[in-house]
């Protein structure tokens, strides 16, 4: 069948059914895998804990990459949005804890409320993203960095001084609701979203803004609107990450969402490559597992493992400096792991 020669695409027009199902194909593959993992790791609490941490960090890194990497706007307050999501979700869950949906088994009801809490947390964080983004995104890069840092700090001080949020102690006794499957699901969603965003016209506008904002604006791109939208999406997922974190950590306090936490995520995004979703994933996984792996190694060799946490922070700082001097594009630059696949597939189509 002859495909119309359309200059922008070399792929033949797909059949209607396939077109409808195609977006859901990844879900169909991933979900059973997640369910299997969930069952398989039921009896190893520390492994589960570690995986949950990895998942949360991936979620944070990929979402930050949307702003810092794709849009080129440097935000240093990501942990603040995580905090908003964590507190909002936790408060909702604790408020709903005595209740359950009628006619539904208690565990399922708990999970439904949990998802609700996550959505609420994410939305609250997204709203904060809007409030922070609207005024700040008109500012120049370095100013934006400090202002976002400032907002992160204000959120922390606010949480510390508000009794309803538990003050300095924070919230304790948050019911344990997070499961590997749930975290895996959200990680999957954010990666998919980031990937689709990058490939879409919307994403291309973001890249245009990153590369040369003035030119983009001259081309008619509503730069502020796009920047704010990216910011809101990013903060939404940070909020969800916070909610997931709260429901397995059981205790959240303002100190866990400070400037240092934001820095850790920034390091992951920069090391992975500003603009690369897969880079953020790889860096987040690696940098979360590395201290733990070292700790196990040190314990096995009977060396003092306490030093690892102390040395980790200054090493991150040095890592940033070395990266900027030697390889500012980080691990993958602005490319993705799957770019290789796409290129091969396009080449195959060319031949056919």
């Amino acid at each position: 069948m002859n495909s119309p020669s359309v200059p922008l695409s070399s792929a033949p027009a797909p059949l209607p059914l396939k077109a409808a199902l195609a977006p859901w194909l990844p879900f169909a593959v991933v979900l059973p895998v997640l369910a299997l993992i969930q069952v398989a790791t039921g009896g190893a609490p520390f492994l589960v804990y570690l995986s949950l941490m990895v998942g949360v960090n991936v979620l944070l890194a990929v979402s930050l990459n949307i702003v810092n990497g794709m849009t080129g706007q440097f935000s240093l307050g990501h942990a603040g949005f995580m905090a908003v999501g964590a507190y909002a979700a936790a408060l909702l869950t604790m408020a709903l804890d005595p209740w359950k949906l009628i006619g539904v088994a208690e565990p399922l009801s708990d999970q439904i409320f949990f998802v609700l809490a996550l959505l609420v947390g994410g939305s609250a964080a997204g709203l904060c993203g809007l409030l922070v983004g609207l005024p700040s995104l008109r500012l120049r890069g370095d100013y934006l960095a400090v202002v976002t840092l400032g907002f992160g700090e204000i959120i922390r001080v606010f949480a510390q001084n508000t009794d309803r949020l538990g003050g300095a102690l924070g919230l304790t006794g948050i019911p344990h609701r997070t499961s590997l499957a749930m975290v895996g699901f959200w990680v999957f969603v954010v990666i998919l979203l980031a990937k689709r965003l990058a490939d879409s016209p919307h994403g291309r506008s973001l890249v245009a803004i990153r590369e040369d904002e003035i030119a983009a604006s001259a081309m008619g791109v509503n730069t502020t609107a796009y920047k704010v939208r990216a910011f809101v999406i990013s903060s939404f997922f940070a909020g969800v990450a916070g909610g997931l974190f709260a429901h397995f950590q059981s205790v959240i306090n303002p100190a866990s969402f400070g400037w240092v936490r934001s820095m850790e995520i920034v390091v992951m995004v920069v090391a992975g490559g500003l603009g690369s979703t897969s880079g953020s994933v790889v860096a987040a996984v690696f940098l979360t597992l590395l201290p733990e792996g070292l700790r196990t190694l040190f314990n096995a060799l009977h060396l003092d493992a306490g030093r690892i946490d102390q040395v980790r922070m200054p090493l991150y700082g040095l890592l940033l400096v070395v990266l900027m001097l030697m390889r500012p594009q980080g691990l993958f630059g602005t490319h993705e792991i799957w770019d290789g696949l796409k290129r091969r597939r396009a080449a195959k189509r060319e031949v056919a």
Partner: protein
Amino acid sequence: MSVFLQHLINGLAAGTIYALVALGYTMVYGVLKLINFAHGDVMMVGAYVGYATAFSLAPHVRTSSLGVLLVILVAMAACAAFGFLMERFAYRPLRDKPRLTSLITAIGISFALSYGFQLDVGPLPGAAPRAFPEIIVLRPWLKIGDVVLWNAQVISFGIAIALMAGLQWLVYRTRFGRAMRAVSHDHRIAGLMGIPTDRVIGLTFMLGSALAAVAGILYAVKDTAITPLMGLYVGLKAFVAAVIGGIGNVPGAVVGALLLGLVEEFVVGYTASSWRDAVAFGFLILVLLFKPEGLFGKNAAEKV
């Protein structure tokens, strides 16, 4: 009334320290258009070098005027050297790259310093606060009713004023100052006009770092305790002050800093005191929203 006066003194004391650090920020931003995130940590390094120097002197030596001078000068020299190295090896290679790269580098240096100093291996001091040795024996200088003005406060204030005046003279009345201002305006054109931009930038860095060192010593004298994290918050607040005054504007930085010190003091003193850290940031956000060029800055619209 005496309460108000005491608050005034406290606020000015804090403000002058912010001012010394803010000057460094504003000068470096002027010539490089870079927020040197690590500047606050240079202040911290200065405080620790001063601590080591003061400790190495016998108690009766360190409290003499010569001793105090020595402590300050050694700290200034060490930080100037450090500032030079930072500029030469971390910022100069990135000067023509996108600004984001330098910003990330600055953040990295800041982190490496403030957390590196928290390790207690070798010469690194460790996270626990240290008590800065007494280098000015406290004596009341002036008593107004209930309020005591101490000699240490007067000396600090004097040193700060002298340095600020000196800097003002340097920037506006010397050839070097003119070169600095030319480079701030446009470093490429300044280079074409025959100004040794690299040298000017390097010297500016050294100057700013030396001022930060003095700020570190004065801070240690005022509050006694020094910790590796002391630079972070003072640095951020000093940056806020520089922005309030108009980034790149030398007298503006001083005014902004004194203003911030006073606002902080009065807000904490007369209202809920645990919001101290948020005051500076709140102030910053307000300024950036309504008058981003600062009190004295010029509205530099970006030309396309």
